[in-house]
């Protein structure tokens, strides 16, 4: 039993890394622009489908690089046209807008690529497990963790070492002052949104390798992302990362003892955190209005 438990903890970290990737994109957008992006799952699906379309032409690696960029561009367009008019209003409106956008994205995906699941193949050398005993450590899952690590490192570098990143960080704390200091806040929000959607597209390509690719692939992944953000703490990217990993491990462990509650446990965690420590594990004081 303990071996199963150990395996599940390890595996939970892997799954959690994936949740964290998705949640990070969502968190970026939420922190700077105050937009709760319910359409994040729809962009994830788009990223996956674009990769699927590119597969025969540029192969898996090409798709991995290009598809998220394409998705990010679509995100930039969506932000410019749909979300920009809503800044300055109650955050409720952007939430509702992204709700409607999610509907549209799902339907468009179904219209273009069909409702039937499409087969997405990853290079075979990636799918072999590392060892017979640790069969769940497949090359693909290790690769995914590495990629999440690279993405997080990349994000860290962008946020801490580039001017854009500095502005985003400053804007997260006080957007008005940043604007007064002469930064074009509109473009800043736009780029930030694009960055978040890039992460969603990347998560989509990775997801397509593990899951069946059909129009609703993103909808089941949206809730764990929100939970990760709340548990880790709004406004804290390391918190989101931690939140994602925690959810992954919690789900894995729950599977061992109480399998039918595997999905419910993350909501219980969220509820507990909100009641006991609303700002989240790594969240900053004062973020709760």
């Amino acid at each position, binding site marked *: 039993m303990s071996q199963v438990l150990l395996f599940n903890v390890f595996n939970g970290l892997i799954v959690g890394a994936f949740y964290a990737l998705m949640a990070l994109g969502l968190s970026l957008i939420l922190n700077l622009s105050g937009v709760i992006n319910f359409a994040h799952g729809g962009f994830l699906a788009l990223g996956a489908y674009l990769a699927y379309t590119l597969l025969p032409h540029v192969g898996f690696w090409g798709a991995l690089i290009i598809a998220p960029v394409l998705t990010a561009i679509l995100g930039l367009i969506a932000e410019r046209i749909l979300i920009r008019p809503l800044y300055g209003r109650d955050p409720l409106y952007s939430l509702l807008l992204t709700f*409607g956008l999610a509907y549209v994205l799902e339907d468009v995906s179904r219209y273009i690529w069909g409702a039937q699941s499409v087969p997405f193949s990853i290079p075979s050398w990636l799918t072999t497990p590392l060892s017979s005993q640790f069969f769940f450590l497949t090359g693909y899952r290790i690769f995914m963790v590495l990629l999440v690590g690279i993405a997080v490192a990349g994000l860290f570098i962008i946020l801490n070492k580039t001017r854009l990143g500095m502005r985003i960080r400053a804007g997260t704390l006080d957007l008005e002052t940043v604007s007064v200091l002469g930064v074009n806040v509109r473009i800043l929000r736009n780029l930030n949104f694009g960055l978040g959607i890039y992460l969603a597209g990347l998560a989509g390509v990775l997801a397509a390798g593990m899951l069946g690719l059909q129009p609703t692939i993103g909808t089941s992944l949206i809730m764990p992302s929100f939970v990760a953000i709340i548990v880790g703490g*709004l406004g804290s990217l390391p918190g989101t990362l931690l939140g994602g990993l925690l959810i992954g491990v919690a789900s894995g462990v729950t599977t061992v003892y109480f399998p039918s509650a595997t999905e419910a446990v993350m909501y219980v965690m969220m509820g507990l955190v909100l009641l006991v420590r609303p700002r989240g594990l790594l969240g900053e004081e004062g973020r709760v209005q």
Partner: protein
Amino acid sequence: MSSNVATNTPPVVGNPMGTGNRRGDIIATAVVWLLLLSMPYWMALIGGYTELAIRIVVMGLAAMSLNFLLGFTGVLSFGHAAYFGLGGYGVAMCIKYLVPSTPVAMLVGIATGTIAAMVIGALIVKLRGVYFAMVTIAFGQVFYFIAFRWNNVTGGDDGLSGWSRKALDLGFTTIDLPGNDKAYYYFALFVFALCVGAMALILRSPFGRTLIAIRENERRARFLGIPVDQHIWMSFVISCFFAAVAGCLYALLSNFIDPRALRWDQSGNFVIMAVLGGMRSFWGPLLGAAIFVALQDYVSSQTENWMSFIGVFFMLIVIFFPRGILGILKRSVTK
């Protein structure tokens, strides 16, 4: 959450739900009731059907109950479906396992939803904004999973079927609710009228005015000595009470209840209806529910891609008409 919404609203005088013109309000209310009372008859003429009318009334009540909290207290709940669904399950389980009587079942359903709201409301009342919204989702999902997992009692994912609404025995006459769609429509409308009347009375009372004050500026309300948290708790409970009533009517309508009635996307639909019609007005959510239900019904019959149409329509409303359909008319008058 409350600060941004406060701009653009005219000062609140007299009837908080009206526009200051008493005669206009009375006529408006009269017109709405006239339409509602005759709906089964003119519905069929424009391609509707009685069940659609009942659904509009039920969803309208649910959206109006949410709006009690959202539009009038300024607090967003994204988990109202939980109490809606609990009302439905209460009714279903009562008729199936306990007493096959419609009024008793409704009492059980309403009690279930309301008691849950009282307990949960007490737990979450300190939170605000997106935290409050997320924690309501969390609790909603917990109820969803309970309904899903407790197969023997709730029927699990298959839902609870094999029961139906029972006829109302009033002593001097029996109203055939199960057999006669129109009879059920008027029963639902009667319950709707009671709830809506109660809501209107509450909103006009000093308690209701306090809620609006809290919506406008919570900090100021607190400084005035108003026990804000208690008021929000009461508002939450009242709102969920009416949501539970709507849930009872919903279950009785379909003779069926399943866990999806508890899920967060159902809550999302209620929010959409409230915003679509206009959160700041009393009848707005009813209009929003009518448009949402009718539009979805019509468009999904015409095309498989109805989700795109509804999504685009909804996005347009949010961007261009944030006060909802009614909000446009209101704002242009009170300028």
